[in-house]
Protein backbone atom coordinates (compact mmCIF):
# COMPACT_ATOMS: atom_id res chain seq x y z
CA UNK A 1 0.00 0.00 0.00
CA UNK A 2 1.25 3.39 -0.92
CA UNK A 3 0.89 6.48 1.24
CA UNK A 4 1.72 9.83 -0.10
CA UNK A 5 4.57 11.58 1.65
CA UNK A 6 2.70 14.79 2.37
CA UNK A 7 -0.07 12.91 4.14
CA UNK A 8 2.44 11.32 6.47
CA UNK A 9 3.98 14.70 7.12
CA UNK A 10 0.59 16.19 7.87
CA UNK A 11 -0.14 13.47 10.39
CA UNK A 12 3.22 14.00 12.03
CA UNK A 13 2.62 17.70 12.21
CA UNK A 14 -0.76 17.13 13.77
CA UNK A 15 0.65 14.71 16.27
CA UNK A 16 3.15 17.30 17.42
CA UNK A 17 0.39 19.77 18.22
CA UNK A 18 -1.69 17.33 20.24
CA UNK A 19 -0.90 17.72 23.87
CA UNK A 20 -0.44 14.32 25.37
CA UNK A 21 -3.52 13.41 27.43
CA UNK A 22 -2.40 12.42 30.88
CA UNK A 23 -4.26 9.60 32.58
CA UNK A 24 -5.50 10.30 36.06
CA UNK A 25 -4.67 7.78 38.72
CA UNK A 26 -7.18 6.74 41.36
CA UNK A 27 -5.37 8.91 43.90
CA UNK A 28 -5.37 12.02 41.73
CA UNK A 29 -9.04 11.50 41.09
CA UNK A 30 -9.72 11.02 44.76
CA UNK A 31 -7.75 14.13 45.65
CA UNK A 32 -9.75 16.19 43.19
CA UNK A 33 -13.03 14.91 44.61
CA UNK A 34 -11.87 15.38 48.17
CA UNK A 35 -11.00 19.03 47.64
CA UNK A 36 -14.45 19.82 46.25
CA UNK A 37 -15.98 18.62 49.55
CA UNK A 38 -16.07 21.80 51.62
CA UNK A 39 -16.93 20.17 54.97
CA UNK A 40 -14.06 17.72 54.70
CA UNK A 41 -11.51 20.35 53.68
CA UNK A 42 -12.63 22.68 56.47
CA UNK A 43 -12.34 19.78 58.93
CA UNK A 44 -8.83 19.04 57.71
CA UNK A 45 -7.80 22.68 58.18
CA UNK A 46 -9.31 22.84 61.67
CA UNK A 47 -7.58 19.62 62.64
CA UNK A 48 -4.23 20.94 61.45
CA UNK A 49 -4.79 24.10 63.48
CA UNK A 50 -5.72 22.11 66.60
CA UNK A 51 -2.70 19.86 66.19
CA UNK A 52 -0.37 22.83 65.70
CA UNK A 53 -1.90 24.60 68.68
CA UNK A 54 -1.47 21.50 70.84
CA UNK A 55 2.20 21.27 69.95
CA UNK A 56 3.19 24.94 69.93
CA UNK A 57 0.43 26.44 72.13
CA UNK A 58 2.29 25.94 75.43
CA UNK A 59 5.07 28.23 74.13
CA UNK A 60 2.57 31.10 74.02
CA UNK A 61 1.96 31.00 77.74
CA UNK A 62 4.16 31.90 80.66
CA UNK A 63 2.90 28.83 82.55
CA UNK A 64 3.92 25.23 82.42
CA UNK A 65 1.36 22.41 82.54
CA UNK A 66 2.50 21.42 86.03
CA UNK A 67 2.97 24.94 87.44
CA UNK A 68 0.69 26.00 90.25
CA UNK A 69 -0.32 29.65 90.37
CA UNK A 70 -0.30 30.28 94.12
CA UNK A 71 -1.94 33.70 93.84
CA UNK A 72 -4.96 32.26 92.02
CA UNK A 73 -5.20 29.34 94.42
CA UNK A 74 -6.79 31.43 97.17
CA UNK A 75 -10.05 31.87 95.24
CA UNK A 76 -10.27 29.82 92.08
CA UNK A 77 -13.83 30.81 91.19
CA UNK A 78 -12.79 34.50 90.96
CA UNK A 79 -9.02 34.67 90.43
CA UNK A 80 -8.99 31.50 88.34
CA UNK A 81 -11.36 32.91 85.74
CA UNK A 82 -10.23 33.09 82.13
CA UNK A 83 -8.35 36.35 81.93
CA UNK A 84 -5.83 37.70 79.44
CA UNK A 85 -4.10 39.94 81.98
CA UNK A 86 -3.26 37.18 84.45
CA UNK A 87 -1.90 34.98 81.67
CA UNK A 88 -4.57 32.32 82.26
CA UNK A 89 -6.30 32.58 78.88
CA UNK A 90 -8.65 29.68 79.69
CA UNK A 91 -8.62 30.05 83.50
CA UNK A 92 -7.15 27.65 86.02
CA UNK A 93 -8.10 24.26 87.42
CA UNK A 94 -8.90 23.67 91.14
CA UNK A 95 -5.17 23.40 91.89
CA UNK A 96 -4.36 26.69 90.20
CA UNK A 97 -2.80 25.14 87.12
CA UNK A 98 -3.32 26.89 83.80
CA UNK A 99 -6.14 25.32 81.77
CA UNK A 100 -4.86 26.71 78.45
CA UNK A 101 -1.54 24.95 78.71
CA UNK A 102 -3.13 21.84 80.17
CA UNK A 103 -5.67 21.67 77.36
CA UNK A 104 -2.87 21.93 74.81
CA UNK A 105 -0.81 19.30 76.61
CA UNK A 106 -3.90 17.09 76.93
CA UNK A 107 -4.46 17.59 73.21
CA UNK A 108 -1.01 16.20 72.49
CA UNK A 109 -1.83 13.07 74.47
CA UNK A 110 -5.35 12.64 73.10
CA UNK A 111 -4.31 13.14 69.48
CA UNK A 112 -1.29 10.90 69.92
CA UNK A 113 -3.38 8.14 71.47
CA UNK A 114 -5.95 8.52 68.70
CA UNK A 115 -3.49 8.47 65.82
CA UNK A 116 -0.99 5.95 67.15
CA UNK A 117 -3.78 3.69 68.42
CA UNK A 118 -5.40 3.63 64.99
CA UNK A 119 -2.01 3.07 63.43
CA UNK A 120 -1.45 -0.04 65.54
CA UNK A 121 -4.97 -1.26 64.72
CA UNK A 122 -4.46 -0.60 61.02
CA UNK A 123 -1.12 -2.39 60.80
CA UNK A 124 -2.30 -5.50 62.64
CA UNK A 125 -5.71 -5.54 61.00
CA UNK A 126 -4.49 -5.02 57.45
CA UNK A 127 -1.89 -7.75 57.51
CA UNK A 128 -4.11 -10.18 59.38
CA UNK A 129 -7.03 -9.58 57.03
CA UNK A 130 -4.91 -9.67 53.87
CA UNK A 131 -3.16 -12.87 54.91
CA UNK A 132 -6.39 -14.57 55.85
CA UNK A 133 -8.18 -13.52 52.69
CA UNK A 134 -5.30 -14.31 50.34
CA UNK A 135 -4.45 -17.72 51.74
CA UNK A 136 -8.08 -18.79 51.93
CA UNK A 137 -9.22 -22.31 52.67
CA UNK A 138 -8.52 -23.85 56.05
CA UNK A 139 -6.11 -21.14 57.21
CA UNK A 140 -8.74 -18.52 56.44
CA UNK A 141 -11.51 -20.25 58.35
CA UNK A 142 -9.18 -20.84 61.28
CA UNK A 143 -8.07 -17.20 61.37
CA UNK A 144 -11.65 -15.99 61.08
CA UNK A 145 -12.75 -18.32 63.84
CA UNK A 146 -10.06 -16.85 66.09
CA UNK A 147 -11.36 -13.41 65.21
CA UNK A 148 -14.89 -14.40 66.16
CA UNK A 149 -13.71 -15.64 69.53
CA UNK A 150 -11.87 -12.39 70.18
CA UNK A 151 -14.88 -10.44 69.01
CA UNK A 152 -17.12 -11.77 71.74
CA UNK A 153 -14.65 -10.79 74.46
CA UNK A 154 -15.67 -7.83 76.56
CA UNK A 155 -12.55 -5.92 75.58
CA UNK A 156 -13.19 -2.75 77.49
CA UNK A 157 -12.73 -4.88 80.58
CA UNK A 158 -9.44 -6.18 79.35
CA UNK A 159 -8.15 -2.71 78.75
CA UNK A 160 -9.12 -1.81 82.30
CA UNK A 161 -7.48 -4.93 83.71
CA UNK A 162 -4.34 -4.24 81.66
CA UNK A 163 -4.20 -0.69 82.95
CA UNK A 164 -4.48 -1.84 86.56
CA UNK A 165 -2.06 -4.74 86.16
CA UNK A 166 0.75 -2.94 84.39
CA UNK A 167 0.20 0.53 85.77
CA UNK A 168 -0.49 3.77 84.01
CA UNK A 169 1.77 4.04 81.04
CA UNK A 170 0.99 6.01 77.88
CA UNK A 171 2.70 3.51 75.63
CA UNK A 172 0.59 0.76 77.10
CA UNK A 173 -2.58 2.75 76.44
CA UNK A 174 -1.64 2.96 72.76
CA UNK A 175 -0.94 -0.71 72.51
CA UNK A 176 -3.93 -1.84 74.53
CA UNK A 177 -6.39 0.35 72.65
CA UNK A 178 -4.87 -0.42 69.28
CA UNK A 179 -4.69 -4.13 69.91
CA UNK A 180 -8.37 -4.40 70.75
CA UNK A 181 -9.59 -2.36 67.79
CA UNK A 182 -8.04 -4.19 64.87
CA UNK A 183 -10.81 -6.78 64.61
CA UNK A 184 -13.16 -4.82 62.35
CA UNK A 185 -10.23 -3.65 60.28
CA UNK A 186 -9.15 -7.25 59.67
CA UNK A 187 -12.65 -8.22 58.60
CA UNK A 188 -12.96 -5.33 56.15
CA UNK A 189 -9.54 -5.96 54.62
CA UNK A 190 -10.27 -9.66 54.28
CA UNK A 191 -13.45 -8.91 52.34
CA UNK A 192 -11.53 -6.60 50.00
CA UNK A 193 -8.75 -9.13 49.55
CA UNK A 194 -11.18 -11.86 48.56
CA UNK A 195 -12.37 -9.76 45.63
CA UNK A 196 -8.80 -8.72 44.72
CA UNK A 197 -7.07 -12.05 44.75
CA UNK A 198 -8.50 -13.30 41.46
CA UNK A 199 -7.39 -10.20 39.58
CA UNK A 200 -4.99 -10.65 36.65
CA UNK A 201 -2.07 -8.76 38.16
CA UNK A 202 -2.09 -11.03 41.19
CA UNK A 203 -2.14 -14.03 38.90
CA UNK A 204 0.72 -12.51 36.91
CA UNK A 205 2.75 -11.98 40.05
CA UNK A 206 2.07 -15.56 41.11
CA UNK A 207 3.02 -16.89 37.67
CA UNK A 208 6.19 -14.80 37.81
CA UNK A 209 7.22 -16.69 40.93
CA UNK A 210 6.71 -13.92 43.51
CA UNK A 211 6.59 -15.38 47.01
CA UNK A 212 3.33 -15.29 48.98
CA UNK A 213 4.46 -12.82 51.67
CA UNK A 214 5.69 -10.50 48.93
CA UNK A 215 2.41 -10.74 46.99
CA UNK A 216 0.52 -9.82 50.15
CA UNK A 217 2.83 -6.97 51.09
CA UNK A 218 3.47 -5.53 47.62
CA UNK A 219 0.33 -6.27 45.64
CA UNK A 220 -2.62 -6.84 47.99
CA UNK A 221 -1.97 -4.32 50.76
CA UNK A 222 -1.37 -1.27 48.52
CA UNK A 223 -4.63 -1.98 46.74
CA UNK A 224 -6.77 -2.13 49.86
CA UNK A 225 -5.19 1.07 51.17
CA UNK A 226 -8.14 3.26 50.16
CA UNK A 227 -10.58 1.43 52.41
CA UNK A 228 -7.99 1.23 55.15
CA UNK A 229 -7.40 4.99 55.16
CA UNK A 230 -11.12 5.73 55.36
CA UNK A 231 -11.61 3.30 58.19
CA UNK A 232 -8.53 4.53 60.05
CA UNK A 233 -9.81 8.10 59.94
CA UNK A 234 -13.12 7.00 61.42
CA UNK A 235 -11.23 4.96 64.02
CA UNK A 236 -9.32 7.95 65.41
CA UNK A 237 -12.34 9.61 67.11
CA UNK A 238 -13.31 6.27 68.65
CA UNK A 239 -9.80 5.90 70.03
CA UNK A 240 -9.89 9.40 71.50
CA UNK A 241 -13.25 8.66 73.13
CA UNK A 242 -11.96 5.36 74.49
CA UNK A 243 -8.90 7.05 75.96
CA UNK A 244 -11.06 9.75 77.52
CA UNK A 245 -13.24 7.04 79.08
CA UNK A 246 -10.18 5.34 80.56
CA UNK A 247 -8.97 8.71 81.82
CA UNK A 248 -12.39 9.33 83.29
CA UNK A 249 -12.00 6.16 85.34
CA UNK A 250 -8.71 7.54 86.62
CA UNK A 251 -6.68 4.89 84.83
CA UNK A 252 -5.31 7.08 82.05
CA UNK A 253 -2.16 9.16 81.87
CA UNK A 254 -0.18 9.85 85.02
CA UNK A 255 -0.50 13.22 86.74
CA UNK A 256 0.66 15.96 86.26
CA UNK A 257 0.31 15.08 82.59
CA UNK A 258 -3.23 15.05 81.38
CA UNK A 259 -5.53 14.38 78.46
CA UNK A 260 -8.82 15.90 77.33
CA UNK A 261 -10.78 13.09 78.96
CA UNK A 262 -9.00 13.57 82.28
CA UNK A 263 -9.51 17.35 82.15
CA UNK A 264 -13.23 16.91 81.44
CA UNK A 265 -13.72 14.49 84.27
CA UNK A 266 -11.82 16.82 86.64
CA UNK A 267 -13.87 19.79 85.49
CA UNK A 268 -17.29 18.14 85.52
CA UNK A 269 -17.88 18.27 89.30
CA UNK A 270 -17.00 21.98 89.41
CA UNK A 271 -19.06 23.14 86.49
CA UNK A 272 -21.50 25.16 88.56
CA UNK A 273 -18.79 27.44 89.93
CA UNK A 274 -16.03 27.14 87.33
CA UNK A 275 -17.56 26.13 84.03
CA UNK A 276 -14.38 26.95 82.09
CA UNK A 277 -12.59 23.97 83.65
CA UNK A 278 -14.80 21.60 81.66
CA UNK A 279 -15.87 23.81 78.75
CA UNK A 280 -12.46 24.35 77.13
CA UNK A 281 -11.23 20.77 76.98
CA UNK A 282 -14.75 19.61 76.07
CA UNK A 283 -14.90 22.14 73.25
CA UNK A 284 -11.57 20.97 71.84
CA UNK A 285 -12.59 17.31 72.18
CA UNK A 286 -15.96 17.76 70.49
CA UNK A 287 -14.58 19.86 67.64
CA UNK A 288 -11.79 17.34 67.03
CA UNK A 289 -14.16 14.39 67.01
CA UNK A 290 -16.54 16.23 64.68
CA UNK A 291 -13.72 17.05 62.29
CA UNK A 292 -12.43 13.49 62.19
CA UNK A 293 -15.94 12.22 61.46
CA UNK A 294 -16.42 14.71 58.60
CA UNK A 295 -12.93 13.99 57.31
CA UNK A 296 -13.65 10.28 57.28
CA UNK A 297 -16.95 10.79 55.47
CA UNK A 298 -15.22 13.04 52.95
CA UNK A 299 -12.47 10.52 52.33
CA UNK A 300 -15.01 7.75 51.90
CA UNK A 301 -16.89 9.76 49.28
CA UNK A 302 -13.60 10.58 47.55
CA UNK A 303 -12.14 7.09 47.56
CA UNK A 304 -15.27 5.04 46.90
CA UNK A 305 -14.81 3.77 43.35
CA UNK A 306 -18.54 3.00 43.04
CA UNK A 307 -19.40 6.65 43.42
CA UNK A 308 -17.84 8.26 40.34
Amino acid sequence: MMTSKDKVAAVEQFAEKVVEVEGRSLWQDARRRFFTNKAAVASLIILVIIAALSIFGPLLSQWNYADIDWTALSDISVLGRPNIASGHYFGTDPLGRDIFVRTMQGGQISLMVGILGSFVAVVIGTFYGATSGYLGGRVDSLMMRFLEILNSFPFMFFVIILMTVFGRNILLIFIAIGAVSWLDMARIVRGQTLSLKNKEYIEAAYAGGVSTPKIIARHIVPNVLGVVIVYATLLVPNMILLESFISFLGLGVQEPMTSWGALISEGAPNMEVAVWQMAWPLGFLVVTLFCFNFLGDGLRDALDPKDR
Partner: protein
Amino acid sequence: MFRFIIKRLLEAIPTLLALVTLSFFLMHFAPGSPFTSERGVPAAVMANLQAKYHMNESLMNQYFYYLWDLLHGNLGYSFRFTDFTINQLVAQSFPVSAEIGFWSFLVAITFGVLCGVFAALRQNSWLDYAVMSFANVGMVLPNFVIAPLCILFFSIQHHWLPAGGWNGGAWPFLIMPVIAMSTSYIAQIARITRGSMIETMHSNFIRTARAKGLPKSRIIIRHALRPAMLPVVSYLGPAFVGIVTGSVVVDQFFGTGGIGQHFVNGAINRDYSMVMGITILIGTLTILFNAIVDILYVFIDPKIRY
Protein backbone atom coordinates in the same frame (compact mmCIF):
# COMPACT_ATOMS: atom_id res chain seq x y z
CA MET B 1 -33.20 -24.35 63.04
CA PHE B 2 -33.04 -26.06 66.40
CA ARG B 3 -29.71 -27.63 65.50
CA PHE B 4 -28.33 -24.28 64.47
CA ILE B 5 -29.28 -22.74 67.81
CA ILE B 6 -27.70 -25.62 69.74
CA LYS B 7 -24.55 -25.47 67.63
CA ARG B 8 -24.28 -21.71 68.05
CA LEU B 9 -24.64 -22.00 71.83
CA LEU B 10 -22.10 -24.85 72.04
CA GLU B 11 -19.60 -22.75 70.12
CA ALA B 12 -19.72 -20.22 72.93
CA ILE B 13 -18.14 -22.63 75.43
CA PRO B 14 -14.50 -22.50 74.21
CA THR B 15 -14.76 -18.73 74.00
CA LEU B 16 -15.92 -18.60 77.57
CA LEU B 17 -13.15 -20.90 78.75
CA ALA B 18 -10.56 -18.75 76.99
CA LEU B 19 -12.04 -15.70 78.67
CA VAL B 20 -11.85 -17.24 82.13
CA THR B 21 -8.30 -18.50 81.60
CA LEU B 22 -6.96 -15.26 80.19
CA SER B 23 -8.45 -13.04 82.86
CA PHE B 24 -7.37 -15.41 85.63
CA PHE B 25 -3.71 -15.46 84.65
CA LEU B 26 -3.60 -11.79 83.76
CA MET B 27 -4.94 -10.85 87.18
CA HIS B 28 -2.55 -13.20 88.98
CA PHE B 29 0.60 -12.05 87.20
CA ALA B 30 -0.13 -8.54 88.37
CA PRO B 31 2.43 -7.16 90.79
CA GLY B 32 1.17 -6.67 94.34
CA SER B 33 -1.51 -8.64 96.06
CA PRO B 34 -4.85 -7.70 97.62
CA PHE B 35 -3.18 -8.00 101.03
CA THR B 36 -0.34 -5.59 100.40
CA SER B 37 -0.94 -2.54 102.50
CA GLU B 38 1.20 0.17 103.99
CA ARG B 39 0.96 -1.35 107.43
CA GLY B 40 2.51 -4.79 107.26
CA VAL B 41 0.56 -7.73 108.63
CA PRO B 42 2.28 -10.28 110.92
CA ALA B 43 3.62 -13.23 108.95
CA ALA B 44 1.34 -15.70 110.71
CA VAL B 45 -1.78 -13.67 109.87
CA MET B 46 -0.61 -13.35 106.26
CA ALA B 47 -0.12 -17.11 106.04
CA ASN B 48 -3.61 -17.70 107.39
CA LEU B 49 -5.09 -15.22 104.96
CA GLN B 50 -3.29 -16.82 102.05
CA ALA B 51 -4.36 -20.27 103.14
CA LYS B 52 -7.97 -19.13 103.31
CA TYR B 53 -7.91 -18.03 99.67
CA HIS B 54 -5.75 -20.98 98.50
CA MET B 55 -3.03 -18.49 97.66
CA ASN B 56 -0.24 -20.65 99.13
CA GLU B 57 -0.80 -23.30 96.49
CA SER B 58 0.53 -23.43 92.97
CA LEU B 59 -1.06 -21.22 90.35
CA MET B 60 -2.35 -24.21 88.43
CA ASN B 61 -4.11 -25.54 91.52
CA GLN B 62 -5.64 -22.14 92.18
CA TYR B 63 -6.86 -22.08 88.62
CA PHE B 64 -8.56 -25.46 88.97
CA TYR B 65 -10.08 -24.49 92.32
CA TYR B 66 -11.52 -21.46 90.62
CA LEU B 67 -12.89 -23.43 87.68
CA TRP B 68 -14.43 -25.98 90.03
CA ASP B 69 -16.16 -23.28 92.04
CA LEU B 70 -17.28 -21.61 88.86
CA LEU B 71 -18.91 -24.82 87.63
CA HIS B 72 -20.96 -24.75 90.82
CA GLY B 73 -22.02 -21.20 90.15
CA ASN B 74 -19.83 -19.90 92.94
CA LEU B 75 -17.76 -16.83 92.14
CA GLY B 76 -15.89 -16.90 95.43
CA TYR B 77 -15.38 -14.31 98.16
CA SER B 78 -14.60 -10.69 97.73
CA PHE B 79 -11.12 -9.78 99.02
CA ARG B 80 -12.31 -6.35 100.05
CA PHE B 81 -15.88 -6.70 101.25
CA THR B 82 -14.91 -9.68 103.34
CA ASP B 83 -18.38 -10.26 104.68
CA PHE B 84 -19.88 -10.79 101.26
CA THR B 85 -19.57 -13.40 98.57
CA ILE B 86 -19.24 -12.12 95.03
CA ASN B 87 -22.57 -13.76 94.28
CA GLN B 88 -24.26 -11.61 96.92
CA LEU B 89 -22.66 -8.41 95.67
CA VAL B 90 -23.57 -9.22 92.09
CA ALA B 91 -27.12 -10.14 93.08
CA GLN B 92 -27.36 -6.74 94.76
CA SER B 93 -25.97 -4.59 92.00
CA PHE B 94 -26.69 -6.42 88.77
CA PRO B 95 -30.49 -5.91 88.70
CA VAL B 96 -29.93 -2.16 88.89
CA SER B 97 -27.58 -2.17 85.90
CA ALA B 98 -29.84 -4.56 84.05
CA GLU B 99 -32.88 -2.34 84.53
CA ILE B 100 -31.07 0.81 83.38
CA GLY B 101 -29.58 -1.13 80.49
CA PHE B 102 -32.93 -2.58 79.43
CA TRP B 103 -34.66 0.79 79.31
CA SER B 104 -31.69 2.40 77.59
CA PHE B 105 -31.71 -0.27 74.90
CA LEU B 106 -35.46 0.02 74.44
CA VAL B 107 -35.32 3.81 74.20
CA ALA B 108 -32.29 3.68 71.90
CA ILE B 109 -33.84 1.19 69.48
CA THR B 110 -37.24 2.90 69.39
CA PHE B 111 -35.98 6.43 68.87
CA GLY B 112 -32.98 5.44 66.79
CA VAL B 113 -35.01 3.42 64.31
CA LEU B 114 -37.81 6.01 64.13
CA CYS B 115 -35.36 8.88 63.55
CA GLY B 116 -33.39 6.88 61.00
CA VAL B 117 -36.46 5.77 59.02
CA PHE B 118 -37.97 9.25 58.88
CA ALA B 119 -34.64 10.79 57.89
CA ALA B 120 -34.25 8.22 55.12
CA LEU B 121 -37.78 8.71 53.77
CA ARG B 122 -37.34 12.48 53.67
CA GLN B 123 -33.77 12.40 52.44
CA ASN B 124 -32.13 15.86 52.20
CA SER B 125 -35.09 17.62 53.83
CA TRP B 126 -34.83 19.74 56.99
CA LEU B 127 -35.94 16.68 58.98
CA ASP B 128 -33.07 14.65 57.59
CA TYR B 129 -30.56 17.37 58.40
CA ALA B 130 -31.98 17.79 61.92
CA VAL B 131 -31.73 14.05 62.63
CA MET B 132 -28.26 13.79 61.19
CA SER B 133 -26.91 16.77 63.09
CA PHE B 134 -28.39 15.37 66.30
CA ALA B 135 -26.78 12.02 65.48
CA ASN B 136 -23.41 13.70 64.88
CA VAL B 137 -23.60 15.56 68.18
CA GLY B 138 -24.77 12.47 70.06
CA MET B 139 -21.86 10.47 68.73
CA VAL B 140 -19.16 12.84 69.87
CA LEU B 141 -20.53 13.75 73.32
CA PRO B 142 -19.16 11.25 75.85
CA ASN B 143 -21.69 10.01 78.41
CA PHE B 144 -19.61 11.38 81.26
CA VAL B 145 -20.36 14.83 79.87
CA ILE B 146 -24.06 14.20 79.27
CA ALA B 147 -24.55 12.96 82.83
CA PRO B 148 -23.39 16.11 84.67
CA LEU B 149 -25.16 18.31 82.11
CA CYS B 150 -28.39 16.42 82.85
CA ILE B 151 -27.92 16.94 86.58
CA LEU B 152 -27.21 20.62 86.07
CA PHE B 153 -30.30 21.11 83.92
CA PHE B 154 -32.93 18.81 85.42
CA SER B 155 -31.97 18.84 89.08
CA ILE B 156 -30.07 21.98 89.94
CA GLN B 157 -31.70 24.53 87.65
CA HIS B 158 -35.25 23.20 87.38
CA HIS B 159 -35.65 20.85 90.34
CA TRP B 160 -37.60 18.44 88.14
CA LEU B 161 -35.74 15.24 88.94
CA PRO B 162 -33.74 13.87 91.86
CA ALA B 163 -29.99 14.28 91.23
CA GLY B 164 -29.14 10.74 92.21
CA GLY B 165 -29.99 7.59 94.08
CA TRP B 166 -31.95 4.58 93.02
CA ASN B 167 -34.98 4.21 95.29
CA GLY B 168 -35.84 0.76 94.01
CA GLY B 169 -35.98 1.90 90.42
CA ALA B 170 -38.82 4.42 90.67
CA TRP B 171 -39.15 6.19 87.34
CA PRO B 172 -37.95 9.70 88.33
CA PHE B 173 -34.65 8.08 89.31
CA LEU B 174 -34.46 6.23 86.02
CA ILE B 175 -34.85 9.10 83.56
CA MET B 176 -31.42 10.74 83.78
CA PRO B 177 -29.39 7.50 83.77
CA VAL B 178 -31.33 6.35 80.72
CA ILE B 179 -30.76 9.67 78.92
CA ALA B 180 -27.03 9.58 79.69
CA MET B 181 -26.73 6.00 78.56
CA SER B 182 -28.91 5.95 75.44
CA THR B 183 -27.95 9.18 73.67
CA SER B 184 -24.95 7.79 71.83
CA TYR B 185 -26.89 4.63 70.93
CA ILE B 186 -29.81 6.61 69.54
CA ALA B 187 -27.32 8.53 67.42
CA GLN B 188 -25.54 5.41 66.15
CA ILE B 189 -28.73 3.48 65.44
CA ALA B 190 -30.28 6.46 63.65
CA ARG B 191 -27.21 6.74 61.41
CA ILE B 192 -27.14 3.03 60.63
CA THR B 193 -30.90 2.84 60.01
CA ARG B 194 -30.84 5.87 57.74
CA GLY B 195 -28.07 4.42 55.60
CA SER B 196 -29.57 0.97 55.22
CA MET B 197 -33.10 2.33 54.72
CA ILE B 198 -31.96 4.56 51.85
CA GLU B 199 -30.21 1.60 50.27
CA THR B 200 -33.25 -0.65 50.71
CA MET B 201 -35.66 1.90 49.26
CA HIS B 202 -33.58 1.92 46.07
CA SER B 203 -33.58 -1.85 45.66
CA ASN B 204 -35.47 -3.79 43.03
CA PHE B 205 -38.09 -5.45 45.20
CA ILE B 206 -39.25 -2.10 46.52
CA ARG B 207 -39.61 -0.87 42.95
CA THR B 208 -41.68 -3.97 42.17
CA ALA B 209 -43.87 -3.40 45.21
CA ARG B 210 -44.40 0.19 44.13
CA ALA B 211 -45.16 -0.89 40.58
CA LYS B 212 -47.82 -3.22 41.93
CA GLY B 213 -49.47 -0.13 43.36
CA LEU B 214 -49.10 -0.92 47.06
CA PRO B 215 -49.69 2.01 49.40
CA LYS B 216 -46.49 3.59 50.66
CA SER B 217 -47.09 2.77 54.33
CA ARG B 218 -47.47 -0.90 53.47
CA ILE B 219 -44.31 -0.92 51.37
CA ILE B 220 -42.33 0.56 54.23
CA ILE B 221 -43.72 -1.58 57.02
CA ARG B 222 -44.02 -4.90 55.20
CA HIS B 223 -41.18 -4.80 52.70
CA ALA B 224 -38.53 -2.22 53.53
CA LEU B 225 -38.26 -2.30 57.31
CA ARG B 226 -37.20 -5.91 57.68
CA PRO B 227 -34.13 -5.92 55.43
CA ALA B 228 -33.24 -2.42 56.60
CA MET B 229 -33.05 -3.68 60.18
CA LEU B 230 -30.25 -6.17 59.47
CA PRO B 231 -27.30 -3.83 60.10
CA VAL B 232 -29.03 -2.52 63.23
CA VAL B 233 -29.37 -6.05 64.60
CA SER B 234 -25.71 -6.79 64.00
CA TYR B 235 -24.80 -3.51 65.72
CA LEU B 236 -26.68 -4.55 68.88
CA GLY B 237 -24.25 -7.37 69.72
CA PRO B 238 -21.15 -5.21 70.21
CA ALA B 239 -23.29 -2.41 71.66
CA PHE B 240 -24.25 -4.64 74.55
CA VAL B 241 -20.87 -4.31 76.28
CA GLY B 242 -21.27 -0.56 76.11
CA ILE B 243 -24.26 -0.83 78.39
CA VAL B 244 -22.03 -2.26 81.09
CA THR B 245 -19.19 0.21 80.62
CA GLY B 246 -21.84 2.92 80.52
CA SER B 247 -22.96 1.64 83.90
CA VAL B 248 -19.58 2.67 85.32
CA VAL B 249 -20.24 6.28 84.38
CA VAL B 250 -23.87 6.24 85.47
CA ASP B 251 -23.00 4.76 88.85
CA GLN B 252 -20.36 7.39 89.42
CA PHE B 253 -22.62 10.37 88.70
CA PHE B 254 -26.03 9.21 89.86
CA GLY B 255 -24.98 6.89 92.69
CA THR B 256 -27.28 4.17 91.42
CA GLY B 257 -25.15 1.37 92.87
CA GLY B 258 -24.92 -0.74 89.75
CA ILE B 259 -22.31 -3.27 88.80
CA GLY B 260 -19.95 -0.78 87.12
CA GLN B 261 -18.83 0.72 90.39
CA HIS B 262 -17.87 -2.66 91.81
CA PHE B 263 -15.81 -3.43 88.74
CA VAL B 264 -13.76 -0.26 88.79
CA ASN B 265 -13.24 -0.33 92.54
CA GLY B 266 -12.30 -3.98 92.28
CA ALA B 267 -9.75 -3.25 89.57
CA ILE B 268 -8.19 -0.41 91.54
CA ASN B 269 -8.11 -2.37 94.81
CA ARG B 270 -6.82 -5.55 93.12
CA ASP B 271 -9.87 -7.43 94.32
CA TYR B 272 -9.10 -10.40 92.04
CA SER B 273 -12.22 -12.38 92.66
CA MET B 274 -14.48 -9.36 92.21
CA VAL B 275 -12.92 -8.35 88.89
CA MET B 276 -12.88 -11.92 87.65
CA GLY B 277 -16.45 -12.54 88.74
CA ILE B 278 -17.77 -9.47 86.96
CA THR B 279 -15.63 -10.07 83.86
CA ILE B 280 -16.92 -13.61 83.61
CA LEU B 281 -20.51 -12.57 84.19
CA ILE B 282 -20.31 -9.83 81.56
CA GLY B 283 -18.36 -12.10 79.22
CA THR B 284 -21.00 -14.79 79.47
CA LEU B 285 -23.77 -12.31 78.84
CA THR B 286 -21.89 -10.78 75.90
CA ILE B 287 -21.26 -14.16 74.33
CA LEU B 288 -24.87 -15.19 74.90
CA PHE B 289 -26.11 -11.91 73.49
CA ASN B 290 -23.95 -12.30 70.40
CA ALA B 291 -25.39 -15.78 69.93
CA ILE B 292 -28.93 -14.43 70.24
CA VAL B 293 -28.15 -11.71 67.71
CA ASP B 294 -26.82 -14.34 65.29
CA ILE B 295 -29.96 -16.43 65.72
CA LEU B 296 -32.17 -13.36 65.28
CA TYR B 297 -30.27 -12.56 62.13
CA VAL B 298 -31.25 -15.89 60.62
CA PHE B 299 -34.87 -15.22 61.43
CA ILE B 300 -34.85 -11.78 59.83
CA ASP B 301 -32.68 -12.41 56.78
CA PRO B 302 -34.29 -14.91 54.40
CA LYS B 303 -31.06 -15.12 52.39
CA ILE B 304 -29.14 -16.83 55.19
CA ARG B 305 -29.52 -20.58 55.35
CA TYR B 306 -28.21 -22.37 58.37
